[in-house]
């Protein structure tokens, strides 16, 4: 058992060390790319915590990202960062708790559209508030340096990855995955379905809240259309689907691939980037439904009888 686990831990440590060295080696451009990569890893990991584990696919993670950004901007230069950023995270988590109670009662397509709708609703509400306040975009003066933001983001990415890793191996994670396979059966077996789902929803909102706050400082500009941009939610989902959404390495792989693509295409050919994103999503759902990591670990475990094939669900 030590073999694969030790080697994967070694890979984690090597990757974390490489990312920690980046500020000392790289110039502003690559540090910026590194920051983007870390932010996407943190976002995709937090998405996996809910949607990867429970199968409740959220198309609304931009909601927590935007909310965190908005709160950080509102409290900017009034609260110190070490208070305002965690506060943004907690606010996002509390919002998820409050929303989760009604929202998590529906599932399947309802849940998907509902999360999307909530993110849009939140966007229009913030736009409306800003218009009432007479603000059309806010410029942030004296935002922290790129290095500072990078360290914050590195910590977030590490925490998010660790969270996925630990949850995946805990009773809690087993419960969530049981919900994904068959919610009624899980409930019958004594999984506290409602509590678990709610907790997973809140946990998956916490990190995006802080990431949103940090990224608002990075752009030093806040504008609701950008902060609640549905492309953020899309990108997270595609990253998780490409990499694999059942364990911690998946989102990292997915984020790595898409950030490279983003750097190549986003500025010059945003349409092409999004077209490739869409095609990648279709291709992976049809041909690599477990994502890259799922495919790789299936290969590694081979057909020795202890493969990670999911139990077949009974036909509905």
């Amino acid at each position, binding site marked *: 058992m030590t073999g694969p686990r030790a080697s994967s831990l070694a890979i984690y440590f090597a990757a974390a060390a490489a990312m920690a060295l980046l500020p000392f080696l790289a110039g502003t451009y690559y540090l910026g790319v590194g920051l983007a990569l870390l932010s996407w890893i943190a976002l995709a990991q937090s998405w996996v915590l809910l949607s990867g584990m429970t*199968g409740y*696919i959220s*198309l609304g993670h931009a909601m927590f990202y935007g909310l965190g950004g908005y709160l950080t901007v509102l409290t900017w230069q009034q609260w110190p960062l070490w208070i305002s950023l965690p506060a943004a995270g907690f606010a996002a988590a509390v919002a998820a708790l409050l929303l989760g109670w*009604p*929202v998590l*009662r*529906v*599932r*399947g*397509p*309802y849940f*998907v*559209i*509902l999360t*999307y*709708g*909530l993110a*849009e*609703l939140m966007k*229009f*509400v913030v736009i*409306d508030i800003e*218009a009432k306040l007479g603000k059309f975009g806010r410029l942030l003066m004296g935002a922290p340096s790129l290095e500072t933001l990078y360290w914050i983001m590195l910590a977030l990415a590490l925490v998010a990855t660790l969270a996925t890793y630990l949850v995946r191996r805990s009773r809690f994670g087993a419960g969530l995955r049981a919900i994904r396979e068959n919610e009624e059966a899980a409930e019958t077996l004594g999984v506290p379905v409602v509590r678990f789902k709610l907790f997973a929803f809140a946990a998956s909102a916490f990190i995006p809240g802080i990431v949103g706050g940090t990224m608002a400082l990075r752009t030093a500009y806040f504008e609701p259309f950008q902060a609640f941009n549905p492309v953020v939610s*899309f990108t997270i*989902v*595609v990253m998780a*689907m490409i990499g694999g959404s059942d364990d911690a390495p998946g989102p990292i792989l997915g984020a790595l691939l898409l950030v490279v693509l983003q750097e190549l295409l986003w500025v010059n050919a*945003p*349409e*092409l980037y*999004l*077209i490739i*994103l*869409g*095609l*990648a*999503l*279709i291709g992976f*759902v*049809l041909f690599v*439904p477990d994502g890259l990591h799922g495919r790789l670990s299936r290969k590694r475990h081979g057909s020795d009888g202890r493969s990670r094939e*999911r139990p*077949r*669900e009974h036909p*509905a």
Partner: protein
Amino acid sequence: MADLLSTQLLFAALVTGALYGLTALGLNLVYGTMRLLNIAHGEFVMLGAFAAFWAFTLADIPPLVALPFIVLLTAAAGLAIYRGLFRGLLRNPRLAERIESNSLLLFFGLSIVLQNVAAALFTATPRALPYLDSIIRIGDLGMATDRLATLIIAASVALAIVLFLRFNLLGLAIKALIQNREATQIVGIDVEKIQRTSFALGFGLAGLAGGLVSMLGQITPFMGFPYTITAFVVIILGGLGNLGGGLIAGLLLGILETYGVALTSTNYRSILIYGVFILILVIRPQGLLGGRRIAR
């Protein structure tokens, strides 16, 4: 603020409602027969609108003449997508096992692709059609000809489809499939054929709605998603798979939106639609008009 009792407002509400009903009907057909929620539905409205725009701009074909061809075009696109993406999905047991989330992701990917292909080809600049802009007056009521045409066509097509489902044999088979899949198979109806037909019909209706919409407002590559959302709100209001209920619900939402906006301001339009949507899902996920709960 407009006078709430004016016939003008009622007319606007009816036009919006008829369009919503028509869009929702297409979405409902595909959902009802296949239990697949087409998130890309609005993108076919967008494609229909662009088809009408280009037919008019490049070949001087008026939208009303182009409509039947637009319907055929989008229906054919629907068939191609059915064959290309979903037949495989339905047949592969490993994918069909989680058909619901997989199909959502497929439609979702399709929607991103279509939006951005349209944006790359046509640019994101909003366009509009100068067509049927004259105004017909009856008493106090002034009706733009394009809106009147939209109301008449959308309402009559939607009604025709509902009647077709009630009285035609193929229509009855579609209805049977919506109500009970196993029983439909047992009595010897070719389920795959019905699915194919409904898929094509659903996409064709989206194209038709798009052709009509092209006459009324701005045409952009990203105009589609709001139609998906409103269509979804309508079929939740009317009950998933309940086609007649969807028409009433479409009208209801049109009225709600038009009067809601008249009472507040256009800024609240999106908040209103999403608010209604979330409220209904939370309070009565089986739909206001849907009596029995359709299991997911």
